[in-house]
Structures are given as structure tokens and as C-alpha cells.
């Protein structure tokens, strides 16, 4: 497994409404708290309504770096949706890139309408595996629904990221961030979502 080196380029990929803007901030804050500098680039706008959304989180030890990752230079993709994960690999992938992806697809409007079909999921997973140095998959959406709301998907995914050990952040680091920045009402549930993601990756390692 390749070492963590800066600038470290992390991409969160999903669909409008999945809340990746929020987790990109929390991840960046966790790094800042560890003494790194972090910048976040967002692509959103009308994207809250069903479009592809990606957030770039870039971590450096010092100095400034642009909020947008140049093509081909991704280090880690945290994919909230499988086709979006693959979309990112097309532009930012390289033989060493790490991928953690949610397996639950979200259909584009044209698929819902039956005009197009959602691309073959097995082929998507195969492509993700081939195009990455290492890939982890989990059905974070179903795990979140079991917890009572799809809103926990992201926290499960972050937990999974911590579980892989590829970024220098621990569960404790992230719990502190939740305490500081997230709504107190949601704290316990978010923490247990984090733990679930962490455990499922640990169990498969």
C-alpha cells in the first residue's frame, strides 16, 4: 500500500442531495486539527437536484494548493455512488489510487424514466477494481437505512475510510470533529454510523 504523502488528493463523489459537501468539510477539518492544511473544492450549484457532485479535499503540510485537483492525480476516492466513483476514476484515476465505494446505485432521471438503463453494476465494480491500486466496497446505504435513515450513509463511508487505515486519522480524531461541528442531537447516531463503517472494513481486511 502506498504511503500517505502530500499533497494528498481525496475526492468525494456522489449525487446532489447525498450530502458530500458536508463530509468534505468534516474530513478537511479533521486534517486541520491534526496540523495539516486542507482546502476543499466543490462542484455544486443546481446540483442539489440530481446532478453529479464531487468535492475535492486536498491536504498539504504547508503552503497553499488550489482547490481543484489536476486530472490524473487522485489518491483516494470516497464514492457515495458506484457510477459516480467510476466517473471520477476516468478523470482522476491512476494505477495507485485507492477507492472506497458505496454499492447502492442512484438512477439518473433518464434511467428512472426507462429511456436509458443503469450500466451493468458488476462491470462497474470490475472496472473500479481494475483501475485502482486497491478498492473496498460496502453497501453503506442499506446499512444506513437499517439505522433508520439514508442520511447516515456518509458517516458510514467515513468510518470505512478510517477503517482502511490509509489516511492518518483515527476514530478518535473524527469523533472530536463531530463533537465540535455536528449537531449535538445527531452525535450518538453519527458516532455509531462511523463505528459501523469502521468495523465492516476491519472485518473484511
Amino acid at each position, binding site marked *: 500500500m502506498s504511503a500517505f504523502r502530500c499533497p494528498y488528493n481525496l475526492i468525494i463523489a456522489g449525487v446532489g442531495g447525498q450530502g458530500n459537501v458536508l463530509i468534505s468539510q468534516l474530513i478537511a477539518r479533521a486534517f486541520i486539527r491534526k496540523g495539516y492544511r486542507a482546502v476543499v473544492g466543490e462542484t455544486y450549484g443546481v446540483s442539489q437536484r440530481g446532478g453529479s457532485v464531487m468535492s475535492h479535499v486536498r491536504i498539504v503540510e504547508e503552503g497553499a494548493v488550489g482547490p*481543484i485537483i489536476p486530472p490524473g492525480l487522485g489518491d483516494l476516492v470516497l464514492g457515495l455512488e458506484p457510477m459516480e466513483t467510476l466517473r471520477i476514476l*476516468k478523470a482522476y484515476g491512476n494505477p495507485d489510487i485507492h477507492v472506497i465505494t458505496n454499492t447502492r446505485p442512484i438512477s439518473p432521471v433518464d434511467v428512472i424514466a*426507462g429511456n436509458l438503463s443503469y450500466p451493468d453494476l458488476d462491470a462497474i465494480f470490475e472496472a473500479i477494481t481494475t483501475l485502482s491500486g486497491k478498492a473496498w466496497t460496502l453497501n453503506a446505504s442499506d446499512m444506513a437505512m437499517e439505522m433508520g435513515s439514508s442520511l447516515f450513509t456518509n458517516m458510514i463511508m467515513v468510518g470505512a475510510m478510517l477503517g482502511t487505515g490509509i489516511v492518518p486519522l483515527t476514530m478518535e480524531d473524527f469523533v472530536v470533529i463531530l463533537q465540535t461541528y455536528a449537531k449535538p442531537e445527531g452525535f450518538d447516531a453519527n458516532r455509531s454510523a462511523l463505528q459501523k463503517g469502521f468495523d465492516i472494513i476491519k472485518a473484511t481486511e
Partner: protein
Amino acid sequence: MPPRHPVTLNEPGRAELLMGNEAIARGALEAGVRVAAAYPGNPSSEIIETLARASDPKRLHVQWSVNEKVALEVAAGASFFGLRALAAMKQNGLNVAYDFLTNLNLCGVKGGLVVVVCDDPGGISSSNEQDTRFMARLTDIPLLEVSGFENARDMVRYAFDLSESTGSVFMVRSVTRISHGRGPVTFGPLPEISGNPRFEPGEAFTPFPILAKHERRHEVLKGLEETFSASPFNTYTGPDDPELIVVTSGIGVLFSEEALDLLEVRDRVGIARMGTTWPLPLTWIGNILEKSTRFLVVEEVDPFIENNLKEFLGGNTRRFGTKTVYGKASGHIPSVGGLAPEHVIGALETLLEVSYEPRPRAYIRLVKEKTSGLVIDRALGFCPGCPHRASFWAIKNALAKDGRKGIVTGDIGCYAMAMWPSGYSVAKTLQAMGSGIGVAAGMGILDTMGKDQPVIAVCGDSTFFHAAIPALVNTRFNTSPFVTIILDNSATAMTGFQPHPGTGMTCMGQSVDPIEVEDICRSIGFAVKTLDPFDLPATEAAVLEALRADRPQVLIFKRTCALLALKETGKAYRMRVDAERCIGEACGCDRYCTRVFKCPGLIWNPETEKAEIDEAICTGCGVCADICPERAIHREILS
């Protein structure tokens, strides 16, 4: 946005991750701003939202104004009384405020007055990608461009100081990539707020005498050429005699830095970062231009710096001799759209004859092969449970039943998506805020010349207050027969649910009597009918009836935005498709609910050949139960 945000704390030295817009707001707070006003518009909205967190009637008034012109007027009022004030807007908003701004500039200001304009290169959340920098130059306004997060905070502070010392409005330009990006900012101290607003005897702020005031603007700009030359926001890094200098501003700065590093050409190329772009900092830029013979200008969107440099070089040929300026005109940098790091990399590869490819060729081949056909586009659409989907469903059906090939004029807001399949592609025109009604009024009058297609104008509630009222008054005054439909979802949904006069709440958390859209329409003289678009049959019937009238009609469709409703009241229904009843492909020329109605909460299961509800996405609005001709979609009331 996380609820507990430290951006307003007076803790100098604290480092926080701030969004560009939050950094701009922080700069205003550190500069001692007392009044801030704006109308929401991406990518500028978070500036006011952030300042609102620090608002307090005695120290800092923050407001969502009804439109950008009023916002700037509010800020000017405060400035005339000696307080520091800020108005924020997106590029389209500057056009709305511009009439006032051109005069305000001649009048001068007292308290520092900063207009922050957030441009949206690429039109990511806009109807255009206007480069507003030309508008600063057009009306003699000094212009600063932010290029980073801490830089944005510093620059706003600097703008306030200079605005006050020169008695000029200052424009600070940001762009989407910075406004909506995030980076670390180390807080400076917040000043003590003191002093009462005062208008001194003998003071006046008018553009008269016009020529003298105009002359004064030119003097101010002349002086700023030197002030800016010494500004910490213009910097150069690189060799003393580089073979090329990248001259850049805005997001171009960080992209160019990275390109120079990736290509490893720092020893050959210099970088000149420009933070003050109008007037040109003549001494500083003159020195830069003497260092090399070749320049690459990297900026968003139009060639503003590029043209200004060429003009300066052209007027000083004896001093500079022959220089070559590359950029948009030469085709090295794209002349439309937002910048990306690869644009700068590509231009440098060509100009320096170097090549860069971060991925092995074999990998690139593999990407092509492995992803082919597996990544499809995501069209934009209304949210699941969005009232607009129901509204346009009713409009589409009424137009079809009416049968005269009627059209819909669109407007700015989420409902602009009615020009796409999610809104059944009914909207056929789209221009500026409130212009759907104005354009329809121009169509309605054509009836006397033989037009026989009915027209419907749609307009949101926030848009209604912003710019639609004059058009509606015009409609009544000049009797233009068409149907206005106000889509009242009690929100400025597209930009993030900011309060407006109809919502009964200000951004400072004060409750006020809501101003009803219906009351305004009645007072203009319309017999208004208000409907719930979720009641599809009644809504469709009302549209059909209005289409047949020969005088202007106003309908209001009232239903809270799905996102807000979900937050406030949760799901109303649990939905279920009865597989026995669903006739799938056979339904209404196949898959009526998923293919035609298209709510993302309804999915087509190709294996069972039946529709299904996607529990994770459906908001439980219940509307689809009414559209299913087989009554196969059931709703169960949730408490």
C-alpha cells in the same frame, strides 16, 4: 452548513476552515462592517448568511433585500451616515444594481462601501457567465480580485480601508471556485464597534456637477495606480529574466502555481499575481513587463487583464519594444468557461515545448476500454416530491387539453428546469429575474394581430418580489391577455432557502408580518385564484379555465418546497406500488409514471417490469398516487 460555526468569534490566531464566502464575510467583520445587504444568488449567498450569524441591531444590521439594487441602496444609506457597509451579489445581480452604482460612484461615499461580486465562470449555477470586471472599468470603479481564502479576508479589509480613504465605492470580485471552495484562515481581531451614524451639515451625495464629479473619479483612479503598485496583493516570484511570465488573477493564481510545479519549470518561468486589476498598477506592471518578452495571461472568463496589458503595451511601444502576450486571443487559454488546472498545464506545455502526462499510457488505454458505456450523464431534475413537478404536470396537461399549442415563458429559480424533461420541457423562454411575465406581456398583446396560441408565464415567490411586480402592473395597465402562474413554495429554494418578504422572518431572526403575494396581485387588480398543486385535478382545471379567458389572469400555486417540507414536517405518506395492479409497459404508452411523470422516487424495475417506490428517495408527497391511471400507487398516511 454546520450549525456551530466559529466564523464570528473574536479569537485572533484561531485557524479555521472557511468557505471563500465566509472568508469574505470574516474580512468585513474584521473591518468593522455595520450594515450588509444582498439578494441571494449563487455563488454569493453565503456572505450574508455568515454575516447574519454575527448580526445584532445595535452593531451590525444584516438583511436580505428584495433585489440587488435595493441592497446596494441600503448599503449606500449607511455609508452616507459614515458607517462601513457591504453589498454582495452574483454577476447577474450587478446588472440589477448597476443603474444605481454608476450614479453612486459619481456621488462618492463616506463610510467604506464595498460591493462584492461573485462571478460564476462556466455558469455552474447561473444563466450566463458574465465577467463583471469590465463593468468596474466601465464606470471607473477600483477593482480587486480575490485569489485565495486568507487572501479574500485580507483583501476585503484592504478594500474597506481604501474605499474610506478615497471616498470611492470599491468592487471586490470573487469567482465560484473561491467563493464555494474552502481553505484555512487564521483569524485577526474583531474591532470594537463604536460611534453613532451621523450625517454632517453641509454634506451631500449627488452626481452634480457631473463633469467635476467625473473628473474626480479619474483623479482617484490615477492615484490608485500608484497605491496599487505598492500593494501587497501584487507579487512576483521567479527568475530575473524569465523566458515567460504567467500574469494571473483569481483562481488562475493557484492553478498556475501548481502547473509550474508539476511541469518543473520554475527556473524558466515567472509568475505575476495580480490582486488589484483596475486601474492597472502601472509602476508594478511596468516592471514586470520589462522582465521578459513573452507573457501568458491566465484569467476567468474574458480577456480583461490581457486586453488591458495590450493597451498599455501599445501605448508605450518605445519603452517596451516588442512583446508577445498569449492568452485567450492566441487560443492558448479557452475563451469561454471556467479555468481548470489542465488549461494552464496545456498552455505551458505548448509555449515551453515540454510535455506532461501523470498517468502511464497503458492506464489511459485501460480507462477507455473499461469505462466505455458505463458512465452516463445525469440530467438535472426537480427533487423527489417537488411541488413544481406537480405544477408543470398540471400545466402540461391543461395546455394539451386546450389544444392551441400554447407556450410557457420561464423565469429564474428551480422552476427554470421546466425547460428540461423533468418539467416536461414546457418552458420555452428564459432570461432574467422576473422577465417571464414581461416577455409574456409582449406576447399577449399579439392577440389583436392574429396570434391564437395562449401564453402562460411562471414566476417564483422570491422572484416575484425581486422583479416581477412592475411587469405585472404593466400587464394590467396595457391589458395583455395571458396567464401568470406564481409558483409559491415559500422559499428561495435554488440558493438555499433564504427568507424573503413572504416568509415572515428576516435573516436577523426577527418575525415580521409576511407580505402575501396574493394581496399584492389583488391590489393590482387581478382576481387571484390560489391552488394547491398537489391537488392535480383542481389545478389542471383552473389552468384550463384561465387559458380560455380573454383578460390577464393570475393563479397562485402554493405548496412548500419539498426539501423544506421534509425538514419541517417529514414524510406525509408511505407509498407503495401494488404489483398486481401495475400494468408496466402497457400503461399510458408504456410506464406512464416513471417514463412520463418522472419523479426520482418512482423507479422502473426492468426485471419485474413494474414500477417501484424507492424508499430512500421518495419524500412521501403522495402526488403520484393521483397520476396512476390504474390506481396502483397507494399512499398510507404517516402520523
